[in-house]
């Protein structure tokens, strides 16, 4: 008898609460665009914050609400997914070339020797509050891997041999977390070429050439030879530092052999063969950079 009473009471209570809940749900129903859910499913769901929003949900809300979505871009998903989202929403997406994070310092342990010993907290941000770092260069990679910690995609790793951070372009989604983290501002999002080809000046030192030469054998000294050699006007020199504009660069590689310090790095490409017609004065410079490697 007791058992029956318990079952009856609980069932009645359940039915009653269900009815109340039904009416409450009707009354306080939140109207939400069903497209937000759909767009969220299309996004990669990494919640990395690379788009500038708190997560993929916030991004999809913004995509649905804003009429003009040119400024919104998910670097992880890339242009194709953005286009399909725009197609689904009946909007137009801006064309954006895929990007890849690039570390602009070539000062390896061999080329940029350490001049002091640091034993504090192992964090680039901490080192940066104290002084310029263990080498003589105030602009180079500190090498304690704050960016490696910041990368949510496992695309970065510290190479103990060179003491520098290396980026795997296949894993990099160009979310920009490392760019924000680096206290020296060494990481740049650059255009991603097919087959992960790349060409860039691996130096950010704004010091005069004589100062750079004293502290690092791989630094840009701002001599301007590369800018003269570039047929497309892609290279500019500012504060003793060359910069290759990836939008203008056509990967012709003419600048690489000109560089006396080997500061211009190329990835997944062969160097141009030494031109026989090149003036003799340049030949030893090239040979020097090769032996230094």
């Amino acid at each position, binding site marked *: 008898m007791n058992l029956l009473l318990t079952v009856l009471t609980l069932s009645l209570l359940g039915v009653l609460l269900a009815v109340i809940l039904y009416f409450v749900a009707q009354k306080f129903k939140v109207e939400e665009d069903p497209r937000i859910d759909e767009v969220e499913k299309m996004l990669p769901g990494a919640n990395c914050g690379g788009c500038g929003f708190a997560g993929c949900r916030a991004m999809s809300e913004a995509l649905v609400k804003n009429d003009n979505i040119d400024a919104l871009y998910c670097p992880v998903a890339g242009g194709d997914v953005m286009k399909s989202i725009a197609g689904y929403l009946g909007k137009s997406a801006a064309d954006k070339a895929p990007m890849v994070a690039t570390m602009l310092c070539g000062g390896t342990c061999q080329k940029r020797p350490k*001049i*002091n*010993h640091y*034993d*504090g*907290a192992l*964090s680039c*941000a*901490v080192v940066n*509050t*104290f*002084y*310029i*770092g263990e080498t*003589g260069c*105030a602009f180079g990679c500190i090498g304690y891997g704050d960016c490696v910690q910041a990368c949510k995609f496992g695309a970065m790793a510290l190479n103990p041999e060179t003491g520098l951070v290396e980026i795997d372009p296949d894993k990099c989604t160009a979310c920009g977390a490392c760019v924000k983290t680096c206290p020296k501002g060494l990481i740049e999002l650059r255009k991603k070429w097919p087959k992960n080809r790349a060409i860039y000046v691996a130096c950010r030192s704004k*010091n005069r050439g004589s100062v750079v030469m004293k502290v690092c054998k791989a630094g840009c000294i701002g001599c301007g030879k590369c800018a003269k050699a570039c047929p497309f006007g892609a290279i500019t020199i500012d504060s003793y530092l060359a910069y290759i504009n990836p939008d203008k660069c056509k990967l012709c590689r003419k600048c690489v052999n000109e560089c006396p310090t080997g500061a211009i790095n190329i990835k997944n490409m062969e160097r141009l063969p030494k031109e026989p017609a090149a003036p003799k004065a340049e030949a030893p410079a090239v040979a020097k950079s090769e032996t230094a490697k």
Partner: protein
Amino acid sequence: MRTFPIGGIHPHDNKEWSKDKAIEVLELPDEAKLPMVQHIGSPATPIVQKGDKVLTGQVIGQSTGFVSANIHSPISGTVTNVDMFPNGQGQRRMMVVIKREGDEWLETIDRTPDHKRECTLEPKEIIAKIKDAGIVGLGGAQFPTHVKLTIPDGQKAEVVVINGVECEPYLTSDYRTMLERAEMVLTGTEIVMRAVGVKRAVIGVENNKPDAIKHLREVIARDGYHGIEVMPLKMRYPQGGEKQLIAAVTGREVPPPPALPISVGAVVCNVSTCVAIYEAVQKNKPLIERVVTVTGKHLNSTHNYLARFGTPASRFFELAGIPEGDVKLLNGGPMMGRSVVDITAPLIKGCSGLTVITGAEAARGKELSCIKCAKCVSVCPMGLEPYLLSKLAKMQKWDMAEEHNTVDCIECGCCSYTCPSNLPLLDYIRIGKQTVSTIVRARAAANNKK
């Protein structure tokens, strides 16, 4: 005996290495590099060019704005360069390089050795003279003194507190100044009292310096310095912190920033700053030299030098004789000093000592896990929670760090010193403090625009 109410530590003071060394006048440097930033605030602008002849005491860097300070030539000679050179931390800063030729001074400077006590100038004139002389806080903070002595409208100074605490281990420059230049310190104090319009001044000295306390009291009684009192304080680090000193001497607590010591009626000056004020006001001599301690357990000799600014750090280390092997060179003492990585860097206004430490003393211990012992909380003189602030900075939770008052941190390093797990607490708190201050300033600027 009085001291500040909360926190603090008791490191070995290590003053015995240099405290009996009388102040020696260091020979003039052959070349002086003068950074244009030797103070808190906007950098000075170099007003000399390559090839210009300058005299000792001539202005070479003009202050830009109210919170800024003039830079004067410490030697006479020719300007050989105006360019970026590395400072002690290796960062490149704008510096004026002067090559010495002879020793010619500006004619307005009174170089007679006799003591001049009489001061009949108006407060405004005194402050103007201090501003022209480029005087900044010589205790280490390098805050422009004329800003400190300019009392904001609606506030009133009640007491002048003179900082003769020198709580930092190893350093003895203030101690030697109090012993050998007591008259200058006391006249400087009188001038500060006159400038801010108060009748009472207290010189706080820690009880590990009984000679200084005795000597100052004797001079006060002998020469009749009315209204100046010497207060012995119980030895405890960081008593030399402005807020800690005010709490120890007056028993009043300075509210959190942006409130200044003047909000509790106190004006604080270091003893070396008092000497500089005396020389500027009575002798028209700008700030071109200071007493600097060169010390360390393993040095061949320790010294207290009266040296001109711009003298390279390497000169001091040469004279003291650095031991072989790896050493840690500090600009300042072991608690708050900063490591020097470039010994060509010049002596600047805020450097009260160069300390050399070696071996195990210089190395940090192995970092272990936090055991939640709360020692850092009990030693924090500002009543903060260092373990939490450091963690919040590590996790980049700036809003929570702000809630927990990370900007109140005075960077004294008690937390890192006391941590049994050797955690680099202050290193992370410093990042948190800098970031949160930037955020707060940006917010204030945005609100002002509205």
